């Protein structure tokens, strides 16, 4: 995978792709999955990140998602945003087709 997870990152969220359609999803505080980054649970230490990833893993067995992983986020205004270009593109959709992906259906993700 390109743009590998920064091993020293402290502010983290968990993402995966949904089994049924490959849709990008985020692990939430409530232990479910959301299509929207704004719903993502964010933790602020590497240890908490690993613990959150472990909580997300049963969703693989439950046939909800494929390949959960941690990614780095940063504080942005009153909320957070992904750090890497890759995760920003996953969050929104292709930058060359603004009519496709999450950005088309939910312009304020």
């Amino acid at each position, binding site marked *: 995978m390109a*743009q590998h997870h920064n091993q020293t990152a402290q502010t983290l969220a968990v993402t995966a792709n949904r089994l049924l359609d*490959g849709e990008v999803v985020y692990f939430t505080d409530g232990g479910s999955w959301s299509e929207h980054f704004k719903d993502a649970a964010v933790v602020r230490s590497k240890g908490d990140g690993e613990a959150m990833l472990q909580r997300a893993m049963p969703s693989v*067995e439950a046939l909800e998602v494929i390949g959960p992983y941690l990614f780095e986020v940063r504080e942005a205004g009153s909320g957070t945003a992904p750090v890497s270009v*890759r995760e920003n593109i996953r969050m929104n959709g292709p*930058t*060359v087709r603004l009519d496709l992906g999450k950005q088309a259906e939910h312009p304020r993700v």
Partner: protein
Amino acid sequence: MYRYDEFDHKIVTERVEQFRGQVARRLSGELSEDEFKPLRLMNGLYLQLHAYMLRVAVPYGTLSSRQLRQLAHIAREYDKGYAHFTTRQNVQYNWPRLADVPDILKDLADVEMHALQTSGNCIRNITTDPYAGVSADELEDPRPWAEILRQWSSLHPEFSFLPRKFKIAINGAKEDRAAILFHDIGIGMARGGNGEIGFRVYVGGGQGRTPMVAECIREFLPKTDLLAYMEAILRVYNRFGRRDNLYKSRIKILVHQIGAEAMAKQVEDEFAAIQKQGDTLNVPPSEVDRILAYFAPKNYESLGDFAPETEEARLADENFARWLDVNTAAHKIPGYRIANISTKPVGGIPGDMSADDMDAVADLADKFSFSELRVTHKQNLTFADVRGKDLHALWKALDERGLASANISLITDQIACPGLDYCNLANTRSIPIAQEISKRFEDAELQRRIGRLHINISGCINACGHHHVGHIGILGVDKKGVEYYQVGLGGSSDNNGSIGKIVGPAFARDEIVDAIGTIVDTYLKQRVNGEEFLDTYRRIGLQPFKETLYDTTQH
């Protein structure tokens, strides 16, 4: 073009139902992702950034209008209304749902198409010259042999689990339009000592993280020996190719490590051993004839080379005149031309086409080119058989849909991989760079003045955008999550194949298009006597470009 026989139908139909069962077992939990992944990859189904991606095979790039309409139907019914033509002459869909894929494969099978061997460590789609069978400079049509190779390599039990993927290209013309020097096996049709036509065989070319130009291991191979010789090469690779290191697993590494001479000896020994076992790998003449018949010359009319209506339109309309000059090529039959449809309008996405445009192109193929078209490895489409007198009508119809960009082989005819906008492997975006370069050089007169210049862009070292063989090659690199772009100069995939040399440190996202501008300006200042970019580069080398680039961008 080739039509499926009962065996083809059976194989493809059975595979659809096998995959339907595999998807059902995955969705019920009977198969884990680890178990399912190799099965889905065998059917061309990847998981990318936003969704699954299905890669459909277009054998040697040839499509009927009926098949193109079905591809449009699939784009509309199961995807988001468009498809993407790739550098391996295939088609990709970027948004299919897993549960729909068996139905997509069924729709493909209905028009004699499939997604077999578009992924995995097997022999991939055989590619060829988009002008095959019609070009004026052709020794012989390579498509019958591409079809024979397709049949031989499809579900070949010995070669379904190779050390790594394996790509074969075949070219029948004097000009290499299939990039045979950059394939695992490259086959060029050649004339033997007594005048008969056979093959020259190259092995060990490729791009990716270790680009290499293929080496010739057989100057002349009789046609009857083609499959036995291919089998020998694949056996040597299967036996000695590395399986312990993904980055050293392609046949090019084996050829590089043991040397072309040793490779040739291994292959010849294996070839001799195969021949000792009998002639089971010789294609029977009756079978060759059966396949040749599918590629028989079309029912061409007797026409003169000069079409007065086309000449009149050329003189009256400079846009048509430019398209005629840039996008059409000589045909071997008097009165016919080869016409290329660029998928690269200014600011467009190279290789993308909407379902509506695909339907329109299919209609035009029916009207103007015997209901057939080709996908090119430069991500464009080709109508191989257009009457000279129809060219203006074709151009007008294309122009009305925005499909008449007159830029084949010019600076805006860029190859670009999907890059980080879609691809899970990419480090950086490719498409936006291509779009910005295209806008920078949109002026038709400027493009004409620059002349033939291939810019190829890859979003990662895997080189799907063929950056190593771009006259100007751009490689996206990730520096701590930030996109940078490395530039290579002097690559070429034609007869004098060469790998581009890196010009210097990578450029930031907001510097790269200006850097390309500087390179082009340098070339225009340095060129003499009507040189093309590659001529100038080969004469003056990297240094003048280094000096202007790194002076102007303050590196």
